[in-house]
Structure formats: structure tokens, C-alpha cells
């Protein structure tokens, strides 16, 4: 039975929708747009939680041993009298990263935008497997609940770092944490299924459900990046799942995969984790790169510079990402010769990221740049990703890494790419696609204030972390003042903490803007940004089934300021004008790609 969607099927589809009650429409929905909203709601909540944990970490580092204002509400096992305990601090650094990576960034990037953008940008009525999609969402809150629960069990939450190195993580005897670590492992095993099923949907949908004329090189870069990300998820997450299972067995039934007392290999865990972990970090950045491409092209009213190169760069990053994992393990005791091969692959992967950065700059060059909130966030992504990428060069050199590994230099790097990069990319995506999701614009004034304050305080907070690392401050240290040589860094740590607090507080503006605009924002109309993609041809928000008739695509997505039309945009589905020589400009359903697409 073919899955071609004809007008008839659409109408039947839409009628069926009217009969669905509240539960089927809002709770157990199979509509990709509702699932996107569910991921948005969940992702933002976990972002808030992850941020709260970060504030606690920074309280301890900025004001060590001081009682946290209002900290009396925390239980005695975590922070008696509001003073954070060392074991709780270890849980904080672990859980902050865990919630941010797995429960905030991944759902926000892949869950929200994969679901929202893919069908709408390629001209499909929904995902290939809508019910699987629904399951894919619901796994996330279940796994999230397990992870949250781990705070409240005896021994507290996992405290072995988000990287969970064995043997520290393989047996509770080393940390005093038993059930908490097991819940951590089990939660991530469960969560993996959300990513895998989501990836199956994204890959199948992009391959099989593109509207006529939507050839591979007419697909918008946001969908391209989500498609590539889906492949990475599909192939990397199962590796982690295998490793998590082995570690959970070590923790529970007494196997010794990673425990040396039973001839287990601690380094095996590191290899498994980072073989997953490196593709994972590209999973965390590639979608944001896609959003940034869309926003910069659209708001500069200019074709993306080097579209084909951008696609090749995405694919290169995805391939190379599999062979660099050892750079996380330079100092691990791994064979040094093997280490050198990872130096080479690691420096090479810098190149496609550089190519993308130059292409974004090339898009801005001679553009007609509109300073909208999404554009400001997108350009901030580029500026901050440059810093994150350049700091990576230091650690790519294995000898220099001897000094900076496991210091705050690494913490600076990872936050520049994940916050400066991914989070600002998410802000660009939310502010850009909010009108399509909710039918209303977010407030521009509030948006710009949020952006400016975030940008300033983010940099004030995180840039000095490079310096802390250069002066030798280690990671995951409850109280650096134990070390005489670090005592002079306390003022810097306090400075960073204050700026983190302000940065966190500034996010209230975003939250307010988001919620207020749901009801009071300016009505958006179909295409407030005057973008070319099929997504913007639909009403805001789109109806069930998205397109009344399957659209036909005539050109690439970045025909801005084209000389062929008077307006500065040329939607993908607008037929070309009839030529005076008599009508052979209409293209067949499977047209050859035209140079310049």
C-alpha cells in the first residue's frame, strides 16, 4: 500500500481529527507539530532544572562553604544548613551535565525541531511513523522521572560525572552511591530508545516523503542538519546503550566488565563512552548549525553562501566524528602512538567547521541584514562557536592537552560550544519558528533585551574559565582553596559565579516573553519573515495534515533577492512565470537539479 498522500486522504485525515478528544489531541497525539510542542515544554523544563543545578555549583565555587540563601530547604543529606556537601557537589556536576545534555539539549534540538521542521520543510503531511513518534516523545518524561528520582534515594544521585568513568561508577563502594548510579544508568538506557525511534522516523521521512521537485540539493539546511544528526543518533546511541548495560551489570549483579578486581578494563568503558560521546557532541551542534543557516540566509535576504559546501561539510563532520574519540583519552594511559593518530583526525575535523563559519560570514557579506532577534542569536552562534572551536585547537595537540586536560580550559571550551553554540542556536530557532508553532510573534523588544543581556553576561561568566584552566585549576573540584596555588583564583571564581547568576536571571525575560506572547503576541500570518521554505506557505499554526495539496517544488530554498522576481524572496513552491515561447518551463515531478540550486 503506498503512502502517497492525495487530496482525498488529506480531507479524510482532517475530518478524523475533529473526532479526537482532548487526550488524543494534546496528550497522546500523533501529530508531529504537537509532539514538537511536547518536546519543547519538557526540554525547557529540564533546561531550567539544569540551570538551577549550575547555580548551585557556582554558589559553592563562588562562595565556598557559605550557606546558600534559602538553602535551608535542601535536605541534610545534600546541604545541611544550606552548605553544600562535597558528595552533593559531585552529584551536582554530574546531574547538571546529564540533564543539560540528555534532557534539555537533545529534546530541544532534535525533538522539537526535528519534529516541527522536517515534514513542513519537505512538504510532507506528517512523519513516516506517527505512532512511533508519539512513543518516542513519551519515553523522554519517563526517563526524566527516573533520573529525577535518583536525587531522592538513599545515597543520593550519581556522582561520578556525566562521563561516569569506571571503576568509580562501577561499584557503590567508591562513592557511597548505589541506587542513584543504577537509576542514572537505567534512565539513560530507557532514554536511548527515544532517540533511536525518533531517528528512524526522521531518516525514513526525509528519504521517502519529500514533495515532488524536492531533490536532495533543494532541501533546506535545517532539514539536512537534522537528517545527518538522525543518522548519528541512530548509530551512536546503541553503542552507549550497550556500554550502559554492561556498567549496570557491574553495579548490580557483580560482573566485572570494567572492574579490575575481576580483570575488567576501566579503559574499555572510556572507549565505549567516547565512541558514542564524540558523535554525541556533533548531535548537539549540527541542528543548531542548520537553524543558523536558515536564519542568516533569510534575514540577510541572501542565498546561503556555498550551499553544496555546507552540505558536504555537514556530512564530513558526521563521518570524521567517528574517528576522533581518542582525543578525550590522550592522558588515559592509552598507547601514545594511537594517541597521535587521534591528534591528526582531530585537527582535520576542525576544517569543515571552519568552512561552515566562513560560509555564514559569506552569507552576511553584501547582504541586507535585518536585526531581528533570531538573526542576532544566529550571528551570536557564529561568534561564540568561533571561540569554542578555536579553544578546541589547544586540546587537539596532545602535548598541550597534558596541561589543560581536566582543567577549566575544557569546561570553557565545552560551554562555548554547547551554550554559546547550541543554546544560542536554540534561541535562534525558537524565536524564528515560534510564529509558525503558535500563530503569534514573540515580542521583539523583549527579545532583543534578552539577547543582549544574555550575550554580555554569558561571555563575562564563561570567558574567564579559559584563564582558570591556564592557571591550572582542575575540574569537578569542590573547594579549590585546598590547593595553595589555586587560592589566588578565588576572586575570578566569585566573578564568574556572579555573572552566571545574572545570566540565569536574564532567562526570566525569555520565559516571560515566551509565555506572554502565546496569548498576547502579534498575530503572525503565514510568512512573517518572508522565507522561501514550504513550511512558511502553511497557516500559522498549520492544520492537521499541513498542506491541503502536496506542494510542488521548483527551486532551492535560498532564492532571496533573485533578479527573477520583484520581491526579495522567491518561495520554493511558486511556479516560475510562463515563458513567452510557450510553456515548457513547467518541470516534471522529478526534475534534474539545476546549477545554482
Amino acid at each position: 500500500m503506498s503512502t502517497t498522500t492525495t487530496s482525498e486522504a488529506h480531507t479524510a485525515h482532517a475530518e478524523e481529527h475533529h473526532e479526537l478528544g482532548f487526550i488524543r489531541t494534546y496528550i497522546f497525539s500523533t501529530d508531529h507539530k504537537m509532539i514538537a510542542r511536547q518536546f519543547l515544554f519538557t526540554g525547557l523544563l529540564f533546561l531550567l532544572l539544569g540551570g538551577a543545578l549550575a547555580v548551585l555549583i557556582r554558589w559553592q565555587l563562588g562562595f565556598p562553604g557559605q550557606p546558600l540563601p534559602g538553602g535551608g530547604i535542601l535536605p541534610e543529606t545534600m546541604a545541611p544548613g544550606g552548605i553544600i556537601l562535597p558528595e552533593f557537589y559531585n552529584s551536582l556536576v554530574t546531574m547538571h551535565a546529564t540533564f543539560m545534555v540528555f534532557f534539555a539539549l537533545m529534546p530541544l534540538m532534535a525533538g522539537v525541531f526535528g519534529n516541527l521542521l522536517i515534514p513542513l520543510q519537505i512538504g510532507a503531511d506528517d512523519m513516516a511513523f506517527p505512532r512511533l513518534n508519539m512513543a518516542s516523545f513519551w519515553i523522554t518524561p519517563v526517563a526524566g522521572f527516573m533520573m529525577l528520582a535518583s536525587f531522592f534515594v538513599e545515597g543520593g544521585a550519581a556522582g561520578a560525572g556525566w562521563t561516569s568513568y569506571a571503576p568509580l561508577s562501577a561499584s557503590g563502594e567508591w562513592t557511597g552511591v548505589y541506587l542513584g548510579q543504577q537509576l542514572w544508568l537505567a534512565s539513560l538506557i530507557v532514554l536511548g530508545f527515544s532517540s533511536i525511534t525518533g531517528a528512524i522516523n526522521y531518516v525514513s521521512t526525509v528519504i521517502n516523503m519529500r514533495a515532488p521537485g524536492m531533490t536532495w540539493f533543494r532541501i533546506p539546511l535545517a532539514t539536512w542538519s537534522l537528517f545527518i544528526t538522525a543518522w548519528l543518533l541512530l548509530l551512536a546511541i546503541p553503542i552507549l546503550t550497550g556500554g550502559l548495560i554492561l556498567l549496570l551489570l557491574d553495579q548490580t549483579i557483580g560482573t566485572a566488565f570494567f572492574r579490575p578486581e575481576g580483570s575488567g578494563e576501566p579503559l574499555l568503558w572510556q572507549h565505549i563512552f567516547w565512541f558514542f560521546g564524540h558523535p554525541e557532541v556533533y548531535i548537539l551542534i549540527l541542528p543548531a548549525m542548520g537553524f543558523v543557516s536558515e536564519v542568516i540566509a533569510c534575514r540577510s535576504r541572501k542565498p546561503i553562501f556555498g550551499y553544496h559546501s555546507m552540505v558536504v561539510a555537514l556530512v564530513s563532520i558526521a563521518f570524521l566524528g567517528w574517528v576522533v574519540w581518542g582525543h578525550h583519552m590522550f592522558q588515559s594511559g592509552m598507547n601514545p602512538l594511537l594517541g597521535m593518530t587521534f591528534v591528526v583526525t582531530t585537527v582535520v575535523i576542525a576544517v569543515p567547521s571552519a568552512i561552515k563559519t566562513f560560509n555564514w560570514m559569506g552569507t552576511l557579506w553584501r547582504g541586507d541584514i535585518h536585526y531581528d532577534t533570531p538573526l542576532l542569536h544566529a550571528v551570536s552562534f557564529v561568534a561564540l562557536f568561533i571561540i569554542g572551536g578555536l579553544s578546541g585547537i589547544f586540546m587537539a595537540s596532545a602535548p598541550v592537552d597534558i596541561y589543560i586536560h581536566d582543567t577549566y580550559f575544557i569546561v570553557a571550551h565545552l560551554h562555548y560550544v554547547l551554550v554559546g553554540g547550541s543554546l544560542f542556536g536554540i534561541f535562534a530557532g525558537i524565536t524564528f519558528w515560534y510564529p509558525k508553532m503558535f500563530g503569534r510573534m514573540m515580542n521583539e523588544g523583549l527579545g532583543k533585551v534578552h539577547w543582549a543581556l544574555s550575550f554580555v553576561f554569558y561571555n563575562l561568566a564563561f570567558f574567564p574559565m579559559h584563564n582558570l584552566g591556564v592557571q591550572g585549576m582542575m575540574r569537578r573540584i569542590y573547594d579549590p582553596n585546598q590547593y595553595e596555588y589555586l587560592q589566588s583564583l578565588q576572586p575570578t571564581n566569585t566573578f564568574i559565579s556572579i555573572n552566571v547568576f545574572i545570566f540565569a536571571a536574564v532567562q526570566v525575560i525569555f520565559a516571560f516573553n515566551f509565555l506572554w506572547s502565546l496569548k498576547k503576541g502579534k498575530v503572525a500570518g503565514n510568512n512573517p519573515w518572508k522565507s522561501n521554505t514550504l513550511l512558511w506557505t502553511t497557516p500559522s499554526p498549520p492544520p492537521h495534515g499541513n498542506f491541503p495539496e502536496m506542494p510542488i517544488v521548483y527551486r532551492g530554498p535560498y532564492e532571496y533577492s533573485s533578479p527573477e522576481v520583484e520581491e526579495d524572496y522567491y518561495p520554493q513552491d511558486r511556479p516560475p512565470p510562463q515563458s513567452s515561447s510557450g510553456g515548457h518551463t513547467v518541470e516534471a515531478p522529478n526534475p534534474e537539479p539545476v546549477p545554482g540550486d
Partner: protein
Amino acid sequence: MNFSWLLPETVSTFGPALDDLYYVILWITGIVFFATEITLVVFMVKYRHREGRKAEYIHGSNKAEVIWTVIPFVIVMGLAFYSKALWDEIRDPDRIPPDSFPINVMASQFEWNATYAGADGQFGTSDDFVSRNLLHIPVDRPVVVYLEAEDVIHSFFLPDFRVKQDAVPGMMTPVWFQATRTGEFTLACAELCGLGHYTMDGRVVVDSEADFQSWLDSQQAEEDSD
């Protein structure tokens, strides 16, 4: 407050080479940083929307793609190549000087225990002695630490020497270095190892030959009298 990109003083023989590599990278990334960020700001200002101006309809430039692929590639490969010599010198077990003074260091939750071979120069004999959280080493002589861990992964970090090596239970990893001046320096743990990770503060004392010998003798005497 410290916002310095300058490395603290180094007291080991491969410290200068490592620091040089760091500074080369700092220069290159610094230049790229300023060039790109300034260009970004210039573009944002120069090409901002103004009435009557239209964007240029251009899809890209193959020439530009080639240039900004090849040049970064050459630079990064150069860096990789430049890194190899120093990496081999520090990490290749065959390059450890054969006359290095040996010390067995066992990392555990939450202390460092350094075993010295004693006067007979053999480990595992009755004249061995253990020094807790304190290493004494001679200046201007290579030292090799045979690093092990008892329980979980720790990391032997001597910031002033630019030395860092993970101590993995079940593995023995040699790490060598040579001090260039006397003094007292930090030994830190650089891998999360549990609740006392932040307390694993040890000291490395670099002695003149004479002082080192007298320290060895005094530890020997203490050991004998136990």
C-alpha cells in the same frame, strides 16, 4: 582577578617546549579570532538593512571554498606534525632515560603513596620506604614515576612540571620528568575520584643532590628504626 593567558612558570625540561607549542597555538588562534570576529562585526554594521539597498544575489564561490579549506587544513596539519616530536619525547616508553630515578606512586582514595627503593635500589626489599603525599626528587636528574591506582582512576598532575597522567587501577603507567630548579611544588589529582577528590593535595620537593641524599638517608633511618 586573574584573566591571564600566560602560563605560570615551568620547572621541568619539557615545560618550555610544551609552553612554546601553547603560545604558537595562542598566536594562531588569537589572530584568527580577531580577524574573524572583527570581520563579523564589520559585516553586521556595513550590510545592515537600509531602505533602497538590496542584497547581492550570489550563491557562493568555488575559489573561496578551496582557499578556506586548504589554508586551515595546512595550518592544522602543521600543528599536528609539530606536536608529534614533543608527544613522543614525553610519552614514548622507549624514550624514558635509562638512568631515571625510580619512584613507585600508588594513588588511592584520597592520598598519594610514594615508595622509594631504598639504598639497595631494588623495590620489594626490606629497605623500601613509603612517603605519604610527599615526593622528594633530585634537581637536574630524570625521574620516572611508576604510577598505579588502588581503587579508582586518579590523575597525577604536577602543574609546574606540565606533567599529567591518569592512574588507572589494573595498569601501571610510567611517567618521567626532570626538574630544572629546586623548590616546593604542587601535586594534584586531576580525575574525579570520589568525595575526597578535592583533598588530594600532595607536594613535590625538588632538592639539590646533597639535600636529596640526606632526605633519603633520613627516611631510611626512620624506616630502619620502625
